[in-house]
């Protein structure tokens, strides 16, 4: 609110003071409370925890033959896994197909219907996945949309867009991050996010 800060270094300090000022003022007035910000952010920051898709991807990372079978016939490969809850291959899982990211190829899954998200694998869908604007833009200008998600795909890498439908529900096998050679399958599973299995993010070593 004041212009007494002379140097660019002070911009951070000034912004921090302004944010702190308005938050504390709103708390004092009883308009928000001390935990409000954390509650809002929890909506965006909550980790999904170990979800089924992560276990499937981690298996594919450690077992190239499983990965091949997963790409060839996802429901059959998933049925091999004994540590998944029953019904994984059923319901919305039955028409699942996997596409693998790799050298020069990045896959992005979209969905032009509302009900074709592979629920058993990925858990709850992020809201934007069902947003009509996201879907139509992702089909038309996938690189621009990925950039908006904070993912710069090199121009030499081909972006393939897969449109899920009532017949086929796609998911992405992201690339195994570098530097994870010594990790166990369950440690690897913790690196897989729902976003990476939709192709709007990559899996990173933690």
């Amino acid at each position, binding site marked *: 609110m004041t212009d007494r*800060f002379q140097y660019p270094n002070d911009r951070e*300090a000034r912004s921090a003071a302004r944010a702190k*000022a*308005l938050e504390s003022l709103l708390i004092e007035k009883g308009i928000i409370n001390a935990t*409000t910000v954390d509650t*809002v952010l929890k909506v*965006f920051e909550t980790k999904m925890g170990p979800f089924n898709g992560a276990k499937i991807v981690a298996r594919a990372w450690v077992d190239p033959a499983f990965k091949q079978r997963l790409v060839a016939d996802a429901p059959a490969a998933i049925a091999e896994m004994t540590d998944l809850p029953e019904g994984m291959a059923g319901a919305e899982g039955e028409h699942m197909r996997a596409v693998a990211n790799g050298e020069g190829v990045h896959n992005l899954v979209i969905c032009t219907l509302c009900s074709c998200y592979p629920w058993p694998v990925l858990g709850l869908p992020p809201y934007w996945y069902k947003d009509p604007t996201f879907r139509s833009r992702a089909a038309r200008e996938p690189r621009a949309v990925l950039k*908006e998600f*904070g993912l710069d795909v090199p121009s030499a890498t081909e972006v393939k867009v897969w449109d899920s439908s009532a017949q086929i529900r796609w998911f992405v096998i992201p690339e195994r991050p570098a530097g994870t050679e010594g990790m166990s399958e369950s440690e690897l599973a913790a690196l897989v996010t729902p976003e990476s299995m939709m192709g709007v*993010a990559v899996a990173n070593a933690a």
Partner: protein
Amino acid sequence: MLTQFEQYAVTSMMGAGDTPPRANGTLCFASEWERSAFGVALALARDGHFEWEDFRRNLIAAIGDWERAETSHTPDWNYYEQWLAALEATMLQHGLATPEELAARTDAAAA
């Protein structure tokens, strides 16, 4: 259908000039104050203290002002500085604070 206000609000900005920065698919904050400003704005709109569109109009205006201010010492772009300016403006417009209150608090917080 999942209709959490927080998700709706952020999704509604995608594809527009005021969409928040993301890194590898998720929202990213460079510092704690950015996170606070983000959370306070969403909470106030969610709880009905102003309409989300009122805040967005101010955010788009703040971004527009920054883009038009082509001087030799235009500061580096920081999305959440515009967000903060828009949040202050929206709070003032809706009587959630007075300019004097904000100025005094900011000075105290900076001291």
